[in-house]
């Protein structure tokens, strides 16, 4: 038996888990695991033809369970998501294994468990991405859920509570997916993708509706789609630093992967579009698109109100997922390309942002946006990484986030969807406000006395951050590199492909060439610099040498604007934050509590005769009828 490339990859990934499990208590365990991620990535790169339209690679492992065949294989879609998974795992683990790990251990953290949880996450994600039928998909899905739980819960305290909330949501999602799979099995008689593809064309409307609702709810919970988004921000924010970088980069995208596979590839957007909602003008696709834009807007504006850097980023992570789904359900060549490209772009800048914030926590011990400020003079490289990251997150040129959002905007324009377009832009504007608050409150403004002697983040943390920053810029300059992979994903799931070039997209209704745009931008900066620096030489003054309306500033005076940053905006929209979803969650929770109390009451009564009687009656009724 010869091993295929996929077997090799899964084998390496399994070995990584074993190494983390058995050798993880040795000192250089972090480095060993990181190197193993590197080997996995190399093994994935050997499958690179997949990213350029190559044939799917099967695994030799095939299981027969109760008449069901379970198989695993990698196609362009799996390869693209696996590349992002392994890339973020490698960089997060690299980031973790130096000084961060020592500090984490000193603070009482369990380094062994951290690396094990990371390795388990990567392994289970690869299993999920390789799934070759709905049953193996479900197995992979469950593995990912529990592995994620382990990583989220390990910090204890608040983190464990957040993780419990996550796993509750995840189990509800799993039930929905399981129900969906059962329904599919009933109508298709098999869980193989090919059989489902043929069965879908014969399904009735109510049947398809049920499936779309079950699967999009089940997978949507993982993505944090509205109204199932509440679990995500606290769970990601409380995960130990590099772990949150990894989770924020890729974890919830597993939901998007599954949506792509099941809703787009198997059911087909055309079929979803044919599901009209009675008495309205919209169909199931529009419904998904609107869920996507609400997922963009509400979490983004919630992020704006956060006073903790990690919470802020985690909330944005939810919002950015909305852009991906939006592009995918618009499903024309540009929109789908934008949505898919955004998965890659988001992973790069979100990981960089979480790492930069973790670096700040590493040096200052806090991520409270009201207790920082002025750090740019102490941590200039971290500032630069955060700046690159927020430009990507806000979707401005010259970083990669701009390209994917541009594609989504263009598709909404082509398809003539003004309200969705405006909603998507509102999300971007909200993001700009929010990320400026982030960078201002951490790195700009007044440097606090207690931070006067802190140093730049250590190199072990700095290098992965710089690599990410470079990727964010390069894929912004040359979006053609990831767009080639995206194009083969689009082909693999049966979507049309845009006419992409190295610098962007060619289209009759308006093209984009980032090489030129960034070229002139930097030329402009050059001229600006020439004008600026050729003028009189400037003198650097102390930060307390500042206008204060006639007062003298001294070191003990806090001269910084950080709290309630957008006061004017909040005067108007502050009252619109009603916590409705929290209320909804609470009411579901108390309903469940009430029901369980009722059940408990019946159970506690322990009236044996009553149970016997009712069972007997039930059996009689069953037999008679």
């Amino acid at each position: 038996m010869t091993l295929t490339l996929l077997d090799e990859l899964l084998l390496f990934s399994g070995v990584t888990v074993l190494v983390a499990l058995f050798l993880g208590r040795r000192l250089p365990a972090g480095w060993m695991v990181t190197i193993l991620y590197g080997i996995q990535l190399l093994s994935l790169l050997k499958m690179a033809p997949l990213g350029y339209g190559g044939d799917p690679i099967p695994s030799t492992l095939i299981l027969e369970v109760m008449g069901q065949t379970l198989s695993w294989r990698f196609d362009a879609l799996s390869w693209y998501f696996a590349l992002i998974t392994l890339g973020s795992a490698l960089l997060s683990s690299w980031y973790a294994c130096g000084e961060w790990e020592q500090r984490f251990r000193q603070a009482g953290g369990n380094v062994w468990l951290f690396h094990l949880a990371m390795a388990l996450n990567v392994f289970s994600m690869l299993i999920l991405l390789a799934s070759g039928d709905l049953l193996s998909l479900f197995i992979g899905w469950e593995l990912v859920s529990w592995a994620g739980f382990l990583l989220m819960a390990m910090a204890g305290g608040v983190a464990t509570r957040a993780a419990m909330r996550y796993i509750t949501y995840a189990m509800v999602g799993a039930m929905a997916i399981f129900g969906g799979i059962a329904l599919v099995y009933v109508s298709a008689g098999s869980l193989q993708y090919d059989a489902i593809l043929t069965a879908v064309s014969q399904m009735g409307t109510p049947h398809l509706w049920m499936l779309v609702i079950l699967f999009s709810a089940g997978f949507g919970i993982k993505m944090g789609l509205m109204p199932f988004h509440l679990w995500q921000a606290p769970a990601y924010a409380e995960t130990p630093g590099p772990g949150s970088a990894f989770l924020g980069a890729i974890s919830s995208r597993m939901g998007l992967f599954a949506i792509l596979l099941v809703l787009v590839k198997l059911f087909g957007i055309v079929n979803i579009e044919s599901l009209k909602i009675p008495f309205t003008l919209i169909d199931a696709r529009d419904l998904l698109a609107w869920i996507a834009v609400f997922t963009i807007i509400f979490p983004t504006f919630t992020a704006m109100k956060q006073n903790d850097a990690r919470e802020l980023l985690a909330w944005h992570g939810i919002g950015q997922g909305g852009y991906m789904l939006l592009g995918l359900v618009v499903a024309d060549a540009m929109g789908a390309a934008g949505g898919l490209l955004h998965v890659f772009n988001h992973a790069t800048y979100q990981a960089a942002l979480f790492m930069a914030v973790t670096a700040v926590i590493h040096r200052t011990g806090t991520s409270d946006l009201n207790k920082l400020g002025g750090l740019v003079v102490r941590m200039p490289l971290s500032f630069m990484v955060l700046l690159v990251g927020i430009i990507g997150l806000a979707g401005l040129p010259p970083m990669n986030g701009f390209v994917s959002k541009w594609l989504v905007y263009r598709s909404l324009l082509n398809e003539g969807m003004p309200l969705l377009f405006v909603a998507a832009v509102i999300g971007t504007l909200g993001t700009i406000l929010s990320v400026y608050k982030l960078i201002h409150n951490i790195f700009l403004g007044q440097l606090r006395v207690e931070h006067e002697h802190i140093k730049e983040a250590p190199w072990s943390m700095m290098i992965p951050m710089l690599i990410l920053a470079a990727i964010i810029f390069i894929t912004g300059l040359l979006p053609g590199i990831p767009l080639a992979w995206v194009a083969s994903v689009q082909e693999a799931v049966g979507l049309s492909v845009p006419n992409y070039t190295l610098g962007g997209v060619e289209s009759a209704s308006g093209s984009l060439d980032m090489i030129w745009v960034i070229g002139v931008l930097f030329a402009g900066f050059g001229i600006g610099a020439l004008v600026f620096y050729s003028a009189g030489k400037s003198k650097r003054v102390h930060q307390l040498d500042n206008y204060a309306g006639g007062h003298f500033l001294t070191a003990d005076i806090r001269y910084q604007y950080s709290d309630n940053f957008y006061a004017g905006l909040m005067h108007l929209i502050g009252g619109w934050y009603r916590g409705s979803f929290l209320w909804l969650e609470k009411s579901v929770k108390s309903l469940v509590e009430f029901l369980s109390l009722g059940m408990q009451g019946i159970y506690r009564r322990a009236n044996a005769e009553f149970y016997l009687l009712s069972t007997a009656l039930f059996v009689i009724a069953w037999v008679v009828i």
Partner: protein
Amino acid sequence: MAPLELIIELVLMPLVAFIVGLMMVLMMRRIAAKLQRRVGPPFFQPLYDIVKLHGKRTQVSHGMIHDIGIVMAMGGYIAAETLLPVPGMNGIAEKGGIITLLYLMMIPSLGLALGVGQCANPNGSIGIARALTAMLAYDIPLVIVVFGVAYAAGTTNLVEIIATQQAGGFETWGAVQMPLLAIAGLIAMHASLGKQPFEIYIAPAEIATGPMVEMGGKYLGGLFVMQSFQLYTTSVLYVSLFLGGGTTWFDFLLKSFLVLAIPVSIAYLFPRYRTEDLLRLMWKWPVMLGLIGIAFVM
């Protein structure tokens, strides 16, 4: 197009924008003077100001990002001008389109925001917070307008949008075809200039001129240059979207100056709004007009 020709265009376009921008500053001051019954400054005053500010002996820097912010504020606009077609020159307008132009125009604001942030003065930071809020206010009607125009034209390519209007004559001008969008666009454009009654982020009486509080010498000079570019870019963009661009330099400049004269004249007649009132105003009237306008386009 020959590469040499393109390079000449890429150099000329920002240069023209700068010169016209300076004249627009002059016009703004002259209008203010007329309304306030003053004489107003001489023709070369804007140029004198820039030279003076850059030549000052006292130049106070609050650090690296303070400097870079000013460079970004100027450089971003210089780059944006090459995406904005003028009579006879298209630069790289076809390689970006209007969405890219709108986003590129945010780079100078980002640079300014970063630079002001490092000044460690809460007045400046409040000014930026207000400026970003203002952006959230006026950009929503603005993107509705841009959507309407681009959808009606079937392209985001500014060159084509202008060419279509010029080919069909006056009746095909954006303002004639889509009057509601044109009105909404004018209101949003006025707010984007940050002039009264929308100058919430300068507000000298409240936050000591906000972003400019720690700016002097060449720093203020850089902001002056940025403002000239901003006046030019905003009015030329409006002319391109709604008034058929320019076939000759004469009607191009005439239209641009006239368009700009409207918000500037209004500006000096009104006091300042509060931040939340600006949001309320922008999200109500131009948004409503824009949405109705789009409904007509679709």
